[in-house]
């Protein structure tokens, strides 16, 4: 350690022993390797501060250092294994490790929830078996979330919270609602596979919602305000003039709620619908419309 121990602790050369102690305490609280696992810089600085304190915290050693009888390196400490080195060893025993901090990760039940909330401890009794069920929910219930009740074969009912954004085929896990464990072990889980009924208007694309919106020829040419259904109710959308079939507009944030917060978008693809039955005035106009003859939408085909 080449640094000046006074500088390392951030105290003056004439600091009292008490000042030196409190300066070290302050640094130790911030830099202790077990309170900063994985932070190599904190560990190096803590070692430096400890070495400086080993020298200056001892009045006798400090006096000899001040007189130049010993140098700062004389106070190097023996290497120590911090707790984090044991706690971080793969395959180390996990008596102390707690994964209770993940219990809310398992709420939106997916294939990872058991990975996150599994206890490090070996379970002494075997778990009961998981029970599998399937249920159908409406598209909007899956997208917006809903409370459902299912009746099990033994006539008991289970309240089931469909989380917003549930996908077709996604299993929901009801912890401890499976078969009881043999010999007093924990009960298994009930796994409910959710099947989402298709919706006549909306289709889901990840977190986004897509719809195809029929518009009249007049709306296509002139544009204007149109009422558009979204999964959270109708909204007014301004259609720009001259919108062809296939033009796609976006309603930001009107898609499915994402698990981590935020929402997807809704995409609206317009489709021009000609009047039915055909309007003779329109046919007369198209006949007399000379610019219409020059338009060739299939130019790219080389026609």
């Amino acid at each position, binding site marked *: 350690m080449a640094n000046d121990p006074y500088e390392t602790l951030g105290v003056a050369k004439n600091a009292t022993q008490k000042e030196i102690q409190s300066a070290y305490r302050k640094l130790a609280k911030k830099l202790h390797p077990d309170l900063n696992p994985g932070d190599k810089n904190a560990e190096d600085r803590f070692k430096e501060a400890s070495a400086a304190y080993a020298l200056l915290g001892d009045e006798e050693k400090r006096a000899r250092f001040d007189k130049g009888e010993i140098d700062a390196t004389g106070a190097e400490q023996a290497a120590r294994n911090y707790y984090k080195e044991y*706690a971080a060893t793969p395959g180390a025993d996990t008596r102390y*490790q707690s994964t209770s901090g993940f219990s809310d990760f398992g709420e939106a039940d997916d294939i990872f929830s058991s*990975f996150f909330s599994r206890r490090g401890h070996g379970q002494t009794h075997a778990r009961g078996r998981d029970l599998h069920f399937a249920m159908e929910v409406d598209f909007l219930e899956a997208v917006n979330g809903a409370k459902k009740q299912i009746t099990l074969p033994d006539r008991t009912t289970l309240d089931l919270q469909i989380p917003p954004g549930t996908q077709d085929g996604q299993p929901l896990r009801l912890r401890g609602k499976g078969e009881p464990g043999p010999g007093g072990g924990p009960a298994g889980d009930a796994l409910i596979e959710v099947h989402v009924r298709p919706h006549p208007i909306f289709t889901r694309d990840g977190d986004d919602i897509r719809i195809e919106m029929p518009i009249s020829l007049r709306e296509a040419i002139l544009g204007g305000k149109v009422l558009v259904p979204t999964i959270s109710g109708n909204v007014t959308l301004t259609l720009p003039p001259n919108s062809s079939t296939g033009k796609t507009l976006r309603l930001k944030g009107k898609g499915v709620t994402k698990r981590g917060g*935020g929402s997807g978008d809704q995409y609206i693809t317009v489709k021009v619908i000609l009047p039915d039955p055909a309007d003779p005035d329109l046919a007369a106009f198209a006949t007399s419309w000379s610019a219409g003859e020059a338009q060739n939408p299939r130019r790219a085909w080389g026609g």
Partner: protein
Amino acid sequence: MRHSEFCERLSIEHSTLSIWMEQGWVVPAKNDGRGEFHDADVARGLLILDLSETMGVNHEGIDVIMALVDQVHGLRSKLQALTDAIRDQDEQVQRQILQSLERSS
């Protein structure tokens, strides 16, 4: 190691160890029905001594800190396992996960 060796290595009294065990700060591993301590427990003991002696943290504070330290290690080991599992995937899957992470952060 037995309780007496554990106390000796940390220079603590048996009564201190009793308090630590009551609080659940150290828990002996079960081996043939006898509780015994490992090097990891000694390192844990050193941390408890650092907290109480060097940093002047009181019992309540140590209780909170040890619980959080255990949570951090639980979290770190899960995160490590998750990172390793991602590293095992095809490069395209890895890239998709990265993109998804960047979108949510």
